[in-house]
């Protein structure tokens, strides 16, 4: 009996790139400090259409005098995010969170590699902020891929905090014309599995490519997954992902409660 549903008040909601919004939400000071990779379930107070809450990663978090400020970076892809985008300052949202297990961040290697695709940058940004503060001597490299220049977002903090930021776009409109996984693969020999921690977040296709690239090696790679969610709290079993369990057989785990962060090696791709 500790968790609450928070009524958040939107203090800002702005389109910062094509179809990509930054929302700032004020919640009560009792909101737990999130770990990088954790997310919230968000819905518009009192509205039954759309019916379910939407999972959105925490992009940034700060404590103020008597409230907390949660920042969400989201892309408009359907009905729910469309309605979110229409919310004006002062509107109320219901926030359940922070939810899920964040990235494991107790220790990192000398090299820390972040691989983000599209809006997958959202949890990465918070992670980079956190790790660069706690492990200032590690070498941080970000590989970021987007479809085109107008889809590039969320690089403000990474550009300040990472040693190296590699930007790829599918059409070459910004940075290298390449897939982000291939950009990483080109550089891969620079990193030794023993002293490198890899963190990734992005579309399924990107993570699958990464899995293939890392397949033979012994890199430790944590990835944050997405799946449709109903409860976000582990009760509905709706957000299943196939993983190898301890006995090395297939099991379905819950992205919301067992994840969203998994060890890339454990994921079974179908």
């Amino acid at each position, binding site marked *: *009996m*500790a*968790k*609450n*549903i928070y009524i958040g008040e939107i203090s800002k909601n702005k389109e910062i790139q094509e179809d990509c919004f930054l929302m700032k939400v004020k919640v009560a000071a009792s909101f737990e400090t999130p770990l990088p990779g954790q997310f919230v379930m968000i*819905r518009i107070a009192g509205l*039954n*259409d*759309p*019916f*379910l*809450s939407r999972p959105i990663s925490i992009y940034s978090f700060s404590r103020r005098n008597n409230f907390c400020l949660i920042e969400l970076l989201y892309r408009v892809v359907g009905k729910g995010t469309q309605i979110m985008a229409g919310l004006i300052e002062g509107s109320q949202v*219901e926030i*359940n969170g922070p939810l899920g297990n964040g990235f494991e961040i107790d220790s990192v290697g000398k090299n820390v590699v972040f691989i983000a695709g599209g809006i997958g940058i959202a949890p990465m940004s918070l992670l980079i902020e956190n790790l660069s503060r706690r492990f200032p001597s590690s070498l941080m490299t970000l590989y970021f891929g987007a479809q085109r220049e107008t889809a590039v977002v969320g690089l403000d903090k990474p550009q300040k905090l990472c040693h190296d930021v590699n930007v790829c776009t599918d059409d070459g409109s910004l940075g290298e014309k390449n897939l982000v996984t291939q950009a990483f693969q080109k550089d891969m020999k620079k990193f030794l599995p023993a002293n490198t921690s890899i963190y990734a977040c992005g579309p399924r296709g990107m993570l699958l490519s990464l899995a293939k690239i890392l397949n033979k090696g012994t890199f430790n790679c944590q990835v944050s997954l997405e*799946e*449709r*969610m*109903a*409860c*976000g*709290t*582990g*009760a*509905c*079993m*709706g*957000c*299943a*992902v*196939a993983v190898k369990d301890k006995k090395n057989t*297939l*099991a*379905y785990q819950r992205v919301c*409660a067992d994840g969203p962060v998994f060890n890339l090696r454990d994921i079974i791709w*179908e």
Partner: protein
Amino acid sequence: MKSKTSPQIAVHLGRLKLKNPVMTASGTFGYGEEYADYVDLNRLGAVVVKGLSLKPRLGNPPPRIMETTGGMLNAVGLQNIGVDAFIEEKLPFLRKYDVAVIANIYGETYDEYKKVAKKLSAAKGVHALELNISCPNVKKGGVSFGSDPKVAARVTQAVKEEASLPVIVKLTPNVTDIAVIAQAVEKAGADAISLINTLTGMAVDLKTRKPYLRNITGGLSGPAIKPVALRMVWEVVKKVSVPVIGIGGIMTAEDALEFLILGAKAVQIGTANFINPHATMEVIEGIKDYLTANKIKDVNEIIGTFQP
């Protein structure tokens, strides 16, 4: 008699005595743990746990859920840890609370139902069994146990032979005449009847021309189905004398009261938990508020007071 005391909201479903008529619906509240941070389990009428089978079940491959207008589809495929692991790993947690625990069970054969029922009857801390008979009967070519009155009666009887606990039979709405099924399971010894389980539905992804759910079809739940649930509860309460538990699309105390007025002795809250983890608590408080506002001292005074 003016009084500021809170109205009386305990209800009795035969031998099963509940603090209040508000339970969680199976599959929507995990094993209780998942919402214990949000809800004081002690305040619930009962916790109905996720459906249990004899052996652990993997469940269906994803995607398993899809949103619909006013509801959702699920095809979880009864993923569960199995009855033994439940008793060992989950029940001790629930025993710490002063709340009725109802084990929802299901099998693919009569024998599986019997075995699960027997194990749970022997376990400490289970107060009743709820038979999910919406699932396919493998022996009968996959047709649901719950869609044939004879089969429904037989599974009820089979479980009653093994179970010392009260047996609630949970009916599927995907039938022509639910009252006939209800009468059959009552005759077969059901101590109570709960309804409805989900309506079978599906959704098509236009981009891929595939089903949104890997299982193709799934169960529709949420407020979209409430009118159907109310109608079926009404059809059943008219025909049986065992207690009836109303389920389907309950989001608010008003929704719950509709079922109680029709004659349901208790209700279960399902999908609402996902959207609002405090839903059960709000429904309990809302029922009390309604009783107070209408100067009714006992919730039992409104049960079955529908004026058709």
